[in-house]
């Protein structure tokens, strides 16, 4: 992977393509023969004016169709027989919205923006199944291992403490497992927790958890939808080995002022949105604050004061029909401060913990032509934590931070209906300050001050892919991503090929195959038994090489049209190199000399995923089943022998369902089963003298991760009573029970005394936990 002339040539050629492409592709439109008609535009929400992402647009009576991109833009190129008609009917559909048909004359190319009304506020009835259209488009697409969820579609699902959490919903998808119960850790297809790129409006979120991971950083009021990609990666995505979680915030209502929020047991949240200038500019602001510590104290539990808050904000401005600006902001903080015990007695120690996440994204959408759409983003991310402690007159400070500044340029070229080309480039400068340690007085004997390090890595990527129908039954998405990272003393460059193909076996059946290579130019180093927000992100260096993977996947998809249900089965095989683990006994937290403590190794994972999903009707939901294996091999661990990954869970089942008893009463349930996480067990012990004649008890361990905890399963239920949506003010009540049958979800092994002997038990973190929450909605211009 070391930089060479060959790579330099590739970079040059791709850069040239990137720079000249807008000119070439923009010109392409004016050269269109009159036998070609281009219909392009945006699909929007009729109530708010927000763009609808991945809405389907199809020509009625034909197989011609497309979907909107991440910014709600679509482009259809009509040629051949279809132009024999004077006009055509275009059908616009989007899940949860009333579909719309538009007659379009074919005399000339036209720009057509279409607004769809949410189902709850039907204006006109067009009886077309949006989910069926969506599923058909998904089947026809070469895309696989990709799932899109709208926040409002999952908002009624039961959750821990009544707090709907996007990440915890994603954890219910096949191929994704959580770390420990109730936490936001994500492990995708046998990968590690650091191999997921989490994007909030294109900015990287390095830590997705609040309160040690029991809440995610995503305020459900501020989020519009999420795309989870766990394989068959398009060339536009890169930077992590296992998955991309692309989260998009709401844009802000361009027409009316609107407020909504919720009061729950553990936290409350509010969101305000509205036009800054009607139809031209809008804003959205959302805030959330937890008070779980106060609630637990009120319930008699002795817990330290620990809370989090976060703030999301976004503004957008439509400059003209070709240009639009967006600005997104997120700031979240966790704060723990401890100086008194539960009885309010001074304990002589001041201990503080702060965790900060900040992202800023400035985006500019520009339409070069009806066929060429571009987005330019400037992105900033800052993630930092610090631990402050005072013992008498001695102080300790430990802090870490990552600061990113980057730019990204993406083009969408809708060459024709059978060829959609994407290309672009990105650069980002990462600045890491891992584990800055500052101590005073005698604490220095134990923990010396560290010399602050500022580790810089500059990462770049240039990519292009084409998503093309070669025949009626064969669609291929092919491309490559040239990536690299410049660190002190070394430059890493690599080409990542991406290939996905779809073979249409029948109208309702498709076979899909894909292969993708991914590189990751940073690592998160953590202890293998505990995953904390204080786990450290660490860049690649001269000695620490990038992580790299090849993912092969194949699958079959079938549509049961009558039941509006899609069934899919996928198999995957992933090889990973450059993985990181600490040496045995390494000091995980207070250590500023990491490289000496790190080991690099490799991993393999493979498995099968089964997914049945229904998006429309009284009953909606999905069934997911994963059968998987994941192993690791490090020369310095487990005597060099291959061992199971910590989260090598053999079986994972999720049943997720919502039933609409009426328009206002919804019942939901989630049942989840997981094989137990793996751990290294103590299987014996012995005594040993050291040279100072101390007698020590030496534990004897099993092979690494050789033992599994017991499987866990859990049923969560909820009932939501929705207020009338035609009112200016409406309120929803939601009651739920987490872990209905109060079954322990084991997360550790505990030794307990049983008479004169000892035995092992596996405690669970959360038992039956009822919740109640109230959500409200206020909309201007309603009665």
């Amino acid at each position: 992977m070391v930089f060479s002339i060959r790579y330099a040539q590739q970079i040059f050629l791709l850069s040239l393509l990137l720079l000249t492409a807008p000119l070439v592709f923009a010109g392409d439109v004016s050269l269109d023969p009159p036998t070609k008609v281009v219909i392009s535009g945006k699909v929007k929400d009729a109530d708010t004016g927000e763009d609808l992402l991945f809405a389907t647009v199809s020509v009625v009576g034909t197989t011609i169709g497309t979907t909107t991109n991440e910014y709600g833009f679509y482009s259809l190129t009509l040629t051949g027989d279809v132009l024999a008609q004077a006009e055509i009917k275009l059908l616009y559909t989007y899940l949860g919205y009333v579909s719309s048909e538009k007659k379009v004359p074919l005399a000339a190319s036209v720009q057509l923006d279409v607004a769809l009304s949410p189902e709850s506020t039907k204006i006109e009835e067009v009886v077309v199944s949006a989910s069926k259209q969506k599923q058909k488009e998904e089947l026809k697409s070469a895309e696989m291992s990709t799932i899109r969820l709208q926040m409002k579609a999952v908002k009624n699902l039961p959750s821990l403490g009544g707090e709907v959490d996007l990440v915890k919903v994603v954890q219910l998808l096949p191929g994704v497992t959580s770390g420990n119960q109730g936490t936001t850790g994500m492990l995708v297809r046998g990968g590690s927790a650091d191999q997921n790129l989490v994007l909030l409006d294109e900015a990287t979120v390095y830590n997705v958890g609040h309160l040690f991971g029991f809440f995610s950083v995503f305020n459900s009021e501020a989020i519009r939808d999420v795309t989870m990609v766990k394989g068959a990666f398009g060339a536009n995505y890169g930077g992590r080995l296992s998955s991309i979680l692309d989260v998009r915030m709401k844009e802000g209502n361009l027409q009316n002022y609107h407020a909504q929020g919720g009061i729950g047991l553990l936290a409350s949240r509010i969101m305000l949105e509205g036009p800054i200038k009607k139809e031209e500019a809008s804003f959205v602001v959302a805030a959330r604050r937890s008070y779980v510590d106060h609630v637990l104290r009120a319930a008699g539990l002795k817990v330290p004061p620990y809370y989090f808050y976060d703030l999301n904000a976004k503004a957008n401005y439509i400059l003209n029909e070709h240009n639009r600006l967006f600005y997104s902001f997120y700031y979240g903080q966790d704060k723990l401060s401890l100086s008194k015990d539960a009885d309010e007695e001074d304990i002589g120690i001041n201990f503080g913990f702060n965790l900060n996440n900040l992202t800023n994204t400035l985006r500019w959408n520009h339409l070069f032509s009806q066929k060429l759409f571009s987005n330019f983003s400037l992105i900033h991310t800052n993630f930092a934590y610090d631990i402050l402690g005072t013992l008498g007159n001695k102080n300790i400070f430990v802090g870490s931070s990552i600061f990113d500044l980057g730019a990204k340029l993406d083009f969408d070229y809708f060459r024709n209906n059978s060829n959609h080309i994407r290309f672009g480039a990105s650069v980002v400068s990462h600045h890491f300050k891992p584990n800055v340690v500052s101590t005073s007085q005698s604490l220095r004997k134990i923990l010396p001050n560290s010399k602050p390090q500022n580790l810089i890595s500059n990462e770049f990527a240039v990519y292009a892919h084409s998503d093309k129908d070669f025949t009626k039954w064969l669609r291929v998405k092919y491309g490559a991503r040239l990536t690299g990272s410049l660190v002190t003393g070394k430059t890493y460059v690599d080409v990542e090929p991406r290939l996905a193909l779809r073979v249409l076996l029948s109208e309702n059946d498709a076979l899909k195959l894909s292969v993708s290579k991914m590189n990751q130019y940073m690592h998160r180093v953590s202890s293998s038994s505990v995953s904390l927000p204080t786990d450290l992100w660490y860049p690649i260096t001269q000695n620490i090489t990038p992580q790299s993977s090849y993912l092969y996947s194949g699958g079959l998809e079938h549509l049961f049209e009558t039941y509006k249900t899609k069934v899919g089965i996928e198999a995957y095989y992933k090889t990973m190199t450059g993985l990181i683990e600490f040496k045995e006994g390494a000091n995980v937290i207070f250590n500023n000399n990491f490289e000496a403590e790190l080991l690099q190794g490799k991993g393999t994972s493979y498995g099968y995923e089964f997914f049945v999903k229904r998006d429309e009707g009284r009953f909606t939901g999905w069934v997911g089943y994963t059968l998987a294996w994941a192993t690791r091999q490090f020369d310095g661990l487990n005597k060099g022998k291959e061992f199971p990954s910590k989260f090598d869970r053999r079986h994972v089942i999720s049943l997720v369902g919502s039933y609409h008893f009426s328009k206002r009463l919804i019942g939901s349930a989630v049942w989840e089963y997981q094989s137990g996480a793996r751990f290294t067990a103590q299987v014996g012990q012995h005594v040993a003298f050291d040279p100072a004649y101390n007698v020590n008890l030496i534990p004897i361990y099993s092979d690494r991760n050789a033992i599994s905890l017991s499987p866990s399963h859990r049923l969560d239920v909820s009932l939501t009573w929705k207020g009338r949506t035609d009112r200016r003010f409406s309120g929803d009540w939601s009651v739920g029970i987490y872990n209905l049958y109060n079954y322990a979800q084991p997360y550790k092994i505990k030794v307990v005394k049983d008479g004169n002997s000892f035995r092992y038990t596996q405690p669970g973190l959360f038992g039956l936990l009822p919740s109640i929450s109230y959500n409200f909605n206020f909309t201007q211009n309603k009665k």
Partner: protein
Amino acid sequence: MKQIYTTLFWTLLLMTLFTSCKPKPLEIDIPEESPKIVVNSFAAEGYIVLYLTKSFSPLADTADQDFVKSLGIAGADAKLIYKGTTISFEELPDSLEANGVYLAQVDNLAPNETITLEASADGLPPIKATTSALPLIEDFDFELVRNPFDSAYATLFYSFNDVNVHAHNYYAIAISGGKEEEIFQGVDTLRDLNTSKYVLFDDLEYPYATIDGAINILADPYDTLNISLAQINQEYYKYLQVSQKAGSFFSSITKEPINYPSNVEGGYGFFNAFLPYFARVVVRE
């Protein structure tokens, strides 16, 4: 307003419910390893002392003195093979309050000469271990004084010569017998927890032929301390490094599994025959 009070009431009621609904922990059986022979040994002028115990269940009650005593392996057949001669170990009598102590007389332990231990006992797999003696270090200069900056400490100032500046050598200084443990005395006193400690040396970390420095240890005036210095081999050095890591404060927090290396085939522990320089010193005012 009424609605808010109602919400609050339900909140508190449900939280109380929650606290009473801790799920019953699940049972689990973790397979245990069958007992194996564990070797501890040290060398003195003309002798090698062997303490043979057996490994045991992680669920055993180690506070039970009878159980701890039962770990010593009585009646084992242990022998040394040294310079082509087999030397049998003699079991010391039980009056030492520990079963499993054996002694072998080995005259003129020659540096770098291979010594092989073989041992077997009823119901346990046999073991075999190999080591070699290293030269006794006789030019060990040291002074033990009260720490002028912290009266709770005594400081050992030491100095000795690297035995061979052209080879890679390892050493261990051990101090034992200080005052009883003084763990946290209020939050203002954060001290080393061990009153007996050892310090490891890798001569590559010292540019000169002489290795010197100072070690602090909790001790009162007139405490008697045992001080030893031995040259050790790389294998034992790594074993002791792991032991130090495992006993560290951070390891006790993370509880990460740490596997100890061993030179005992078929068993555990470490067989060594490194001759220590040994002295007994009283802490001066």
